[in-house]
């Protein structure tokens, strides 16, 4: 297939570069805060992640110092608990996830031949939420008020009764804030990978790394909401006294554990999959041959993604759950070894059939292999219930977990950083210092954690701030502590190496490792727009099959090399085949993401210090900022007022019925649906399992009113569908009226639901039943209200001429929310108002 716009071929490359730079280039000074470019933000994510890694690392060294000798009082038990809790929290939430997301944000568009991620302002919002949330969370350490109930925050230990300070609140609010960042990155990575691959790159031709990131992003989207829900519920319990987890009010502390591990186990694979993606990218390059079994790897990725959501109970084998459930989760936990083993042997076979070279990145891949296989083997052991009962909550688990996470994430990450270093900086890493760094890290790591398995087998529990002399654990703890300092020295050397290379590294030649993927077609370091022209790629190895591709791309000989219109453009392609469908035009730099994140930070802080009025005001302000941001879309003067495209090119996405916003809304609703399902899980769990659950004899919710509200929202949704169908046929007659009508019907539903809530006279601080009802009704009220506001805004935009038959895209996006609202409203009413009437308490 030939490129769609051939007329760009005769452009002067230098002039093209300057024109594109004018459109895409980053501003300097204070305006650098408005940057939405994925290259810049990806680097910001990674640098910030590294800073948090150093903080988490220092906490780890404090822990090892305390445990080096028996009966030490280097730290008090309270400080020790804060330090261990924050070590886990920082490493998981502020280092591992954002670091890998940063790498994906940086690399994915470059690998799939796009110029940016599909929701650039969302990238920026995500970064600032991460930064502000991380600062709020680490600030708690400075004032010695850090959370101290362990990184999984089991209640009742984290409840207001047993953790009265602000520590747990810092965790719950800070982490939820940071998770906005994780979920938004997840949403846009999914949509970018599915909808913005360059022309011709069918799903089965895209680089394996993109498959891994697609799985990771979907898992974030589905896996994080249960924890967000759990955090919201626990914060409500702490702040207002709603007994979701307190036995006395009919709650259950085990519900927290289920919700936490519903997130927590996928989390392990969310961290591992991108790291495995790095390995699957590096091995073929250094073996000098394509990966064998591409299909096998894709299969393994998908299976891992699914199985990982069925394993959470293996963190809870000792809570006393039924035997049958234990057997199921035990077998499932072992089965996840199969897709992992498939990947390990695919890598082995690729090396076996290639001619591998032991360059520095490969050294780290080898380190990964040994450590990760070891961690995987102890993981299978832990899945065996009788063995789990013995070593659960001992240092054996601490050792296993570090083998999986450090082996499975940190080693591949460093391999990847070394591999892509020339792309970041245009310079090569040193070989010598890097090798020293590797060996110190590798030996130090194994010295610390291999021995720790043994300490656990000798009976040392986790999270004890000290142990007695004569327990038999002294020598092993000392060896672990000494080795941990060797490990720190190794990591320091790696960081030094990376820092020095920016100054002293040899300039890299183009595509220095002779890689096959498109990111190496960038200039080094990359320009803000990535590629002058977007190629047609129908092979998995574009740079091996056509070594000239980077040059012809830079000369503007491929698609979308006409920047005269001044828009930020890239291809919107079919999710399966990669056929070009439309031109996606991206928004430029903007203050709104920073302002919205700052308003949310004020909300977070005012909730923390319990000034709820201020929090309410700033929720509204953040809402206004976000809506104002969405105002600059479609035919708005700042977005794409003119829709003219080069002859032969497809239309702009805002002039079609399908575009990235539609997909982003769908993926966001997937996350939202996961949140809603977690809520339903909580409702049914408390109803059936909680020891002191009390269901009132008669439901306090008025069924007739709820049914009327349901009719109103369904009618509103029908009107929306009708409007969208008309737009599809290029008809915008009475569009504004229709939108206002739908908005009015939505408002009727909101008012009626609000009335039901008001007249139910719930006492949510007395029983968990009422508390759960309250949360469910607030959920539908919020979503109903959101749909009303967005719909009325669409009506306004019709008036301004930003939306209409000429730009019919946006109402279809809002209509999806309506559909979602109808379904959740019906399911909610069925679950909390109808079912209790049918089956009784």
């Amino acid at each position, binding site marked *: 297939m030939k490129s769609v716009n051939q007329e760009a071929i005769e452009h002067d490359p230098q002039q093209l570069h300057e024109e594109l730079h004018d459109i895409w280039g980053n501003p300097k000074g204070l305006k650098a805060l408005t940057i939405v470019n994925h290259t810049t933000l990806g680097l910001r994510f990674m640098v910030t992640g590294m800073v948090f890694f150093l903080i988490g690392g220092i906490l780890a060294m404090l822990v090892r110092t305390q445990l080096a000798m028996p009966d030490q009082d280097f730290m008090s038990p309270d400080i020790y*608990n804060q330090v261990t809790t924050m070590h886990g929290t920082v490493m998981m939430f502020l280092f591992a996830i954002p670091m890998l997301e940063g790498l994906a944000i940086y690399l994915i568009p470059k690998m799939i031949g796009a110029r940016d991620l599909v929701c650039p302002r969302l990238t920026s919002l995500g970064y600032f939420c991460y930064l502000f949330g991380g600062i709020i969370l680490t600030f708690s350490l400075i004032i010695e008020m850090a959370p101290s109930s362990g990184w999984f925050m089991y209640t009742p230990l984290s409840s207001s009764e047993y953790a009265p300070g602000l520590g747990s609140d810092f965790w719950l609010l800070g982490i939820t804030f940071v998770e906005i960042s994780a979920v938004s990155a997840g949403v846009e990575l999914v949509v970018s990978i599915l909808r913005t691959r360059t022309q011709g790159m069918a799903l089965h031709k895209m680089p394996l790394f993109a498959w891994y990131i697609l799985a990771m992003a979907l898992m974030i989207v589905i896996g994080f909401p249960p924890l967000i829900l759990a955090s919201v519920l626990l914060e409500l319990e702490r702040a207002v006294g709603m007994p979701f987890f307190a036995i006395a009010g009919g709650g259950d502390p085990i519900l927290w554990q289920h919700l936490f591990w519903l997130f927590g186990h996928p989390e392990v694979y969310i961290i591992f999959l991108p790291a495995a993606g790095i390995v699957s990218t590096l091995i073929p390059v250094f073996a000098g041959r394509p990966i*064998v*079994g591409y299909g096998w790897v894709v299969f393994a990725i998908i299976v891992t993604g699914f199985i990982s959501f069925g394993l959470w109970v293996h963190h809870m084998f000792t809570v006393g759950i039924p035997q049958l459930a234990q057997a199921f989760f035990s077998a499932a936990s072992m089965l996840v070894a199969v897709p992992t083993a498939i990947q390990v042997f695919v890598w082995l076979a690729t090396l*076996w059939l290639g001619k591998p070279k032991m360059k520095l990145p490969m050294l780290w891949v080898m380190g990964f292999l040994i450590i990760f296989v070891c961690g995987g083997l102890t993981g299978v052991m832990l899945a065996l219930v*009788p063995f789990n009962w013995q070593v659960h909550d001992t240092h054996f688990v601490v050792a296993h977990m570090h083998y999986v996470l450090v082996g499975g994430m940190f080693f591949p990450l460093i391999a990847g950083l070394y591999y892509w270093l020339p792309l970041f900086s245009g310079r090569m890493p040193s070989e010598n210092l890097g090798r020293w760094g590797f060996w110190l890290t590798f030996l130090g790591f194994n010295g610390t954690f291999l021995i720790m398995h043994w300490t656990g087998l000798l009976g040392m529990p986790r*999270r004890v701030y000290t142990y007695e002399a004569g327990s038999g654990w002294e020598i092993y703890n000392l060896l672990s502590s000494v080795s941990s300092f060797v490990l720190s020295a190794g990591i320091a050397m790696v960081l030094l190496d990376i820092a020095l290379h920016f100054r002293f590294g040899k300039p890299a030649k183009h595509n220095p490792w002779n890689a096959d993927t498109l990111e190496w077609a960038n200039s080094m370091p990359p320009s803000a727009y990535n590629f002058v022209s977007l190629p047609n790629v129908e092979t998995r190895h574009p740079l091996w099959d056509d070594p000239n591709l980077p040059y012809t791309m830079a000369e503007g000989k491929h698609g979308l090399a006409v920047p005269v219109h001044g828009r930020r453009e890239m291809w919107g392609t079919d999710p399966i085949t990669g056929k070009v469908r439309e031109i996606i035009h991206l928004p430029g730099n903007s203050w709104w993401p920073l302002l919205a994140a700052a308003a949310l930070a004020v909300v977070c802080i005012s909730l923390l210090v319990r000034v709820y009025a201020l929090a309410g005001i700033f929720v509204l302000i953040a809402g206004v900022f976000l809506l104002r941001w969405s105002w600059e879309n479609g035919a708005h003067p700042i977005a794409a007022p003119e829709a003219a495209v080069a002859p032969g090119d497809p239309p702009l996405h805002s002039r079609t019925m399908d575009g990235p916003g539609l997909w982003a809304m769908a993926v966001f609703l997937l996350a939202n649906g996961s949140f809603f399902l977690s809520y339903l899980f909580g409702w049914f769990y408390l109803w059936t399992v909680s020891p002191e659950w009390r269901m009132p004899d008669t439901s306090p919710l008025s069924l007739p009113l709820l049914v009327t509200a349901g009719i109103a929202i369904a009618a509103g949704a029908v009107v929306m569908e009708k409007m969208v169908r008309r737009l599809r046929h290029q008809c915008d007659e009475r569009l504004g009226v229709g939108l206002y009508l739908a908005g009015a019907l939505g408002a009727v539903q909101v008012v009626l639901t609000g009335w039901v809530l008001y007249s139910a006279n719930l006492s949510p601080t007395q029983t968990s039943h009422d508390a759960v009802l309250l949360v469910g009704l607030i959920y539908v009220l919020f979503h109903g209200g959101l749909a009303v506001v967005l719909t009325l805004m669409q009506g306004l935009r019709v008036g301004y001429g930003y939306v209409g038959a000429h730009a019919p895209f946006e109402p279809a996006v809002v209509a999806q929310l309506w559909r979602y609202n109808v379904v959740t409203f019906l399911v909610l009413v069925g679950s909390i108002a109808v079912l209790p009437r049918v089956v009784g308490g």
Partner: protein
Amino acid sequence: MSERNCARCILAIQRPSRRWVNRALFVVWFAVLASLAGCAGDKSILDPAGQAARDVRLIWWVMLSFGTVVLIGVTACWLYTFKPRDVVRTPAQERRIARRWIVGGGIILPVASITALLAFGVPAGQRMLPLPLSDPPDVIEVIGHQWWFEVRYPQAQGSDSEGNSVVVTANHLVMPVGEPVDFHVSGADVIHGFWIPRLGGKIDMIPGRVNKIRLEADIPAVFGAQCAELCGVGHANMHLYVEAMPREEFDTWLASRQDEQLNQLATEDAAHDDAREAFLTHCASCHRVAGVSSGTIGPDLSDIGSRATLGAGVIAMEEGAVSHWLKHHQSLKTGNKMPAHDDLETDTLDALGAWLETLTP
């Protein structure tokens, strides 16, 4: 390690081989010796004193051996691939080799291992389940508090403050040897973990629920135990002293803790009247001493003199230990919930300590 193996190691060291080989062997030998010494700890999973723990130890060594073989095998294959070699293969051959690796290593190896492991491992856990027996085992209730263990014997012939038939102690668990015992565990405040490593697996102590686990001790001995689930600042200082004794001794032990005996013990000696008076003023609202007070917030002290440790395993019980504890307990066990006794005279504390130490049924 058998003597023969030791001798072989030493011989290997004496042979004139390369120096680093000597050193490496020496290190390995030393590590094995050191680890065997480590097995002797009173909380070691690898030094079982009951069948359940012994099963798990066997599983562990089998899994470790198998896992080591897999790890070494895979690593060796990976390293081997870096050896320069000149083989030319057709694409069909390559596909066949790749498929063999992936199917053999990626599917057959894990599926076979998992099947073997489940077949071999699942029965081992059955022993710890509280399944019905023809001869129902003794029940001992253990309740975790921040940061001590309450131990109750519901089948004994005493009675607690609410008139329930029960013997109550704290931080010192006595059990009969050579027969299964069902432990019914719960938590009074937050979640704690019940675990006697040398006897078998652990189970969480959760408020509002009762979890059950069956354990059996083979030998009369003392076992270490400590809380396994993070439960706050006192988590590291929450130990349980477990003593397994023959059935007759156990029955005697229980019988000597009937209310009449305990009442008499606590009140008989007039020399301690002042101490009892002080106890009623300062301690009785939290602590129970049979015949004297009925507080239930802190540990029951009715037989405290006979316990091996104080403060849930923080210091050993010896003469003067109680008064030492009363004076310094906040520094011995940071953050524990008993108020500091700075306002009390040293003499009072000494007298209290002396009296409590006489409570040895």
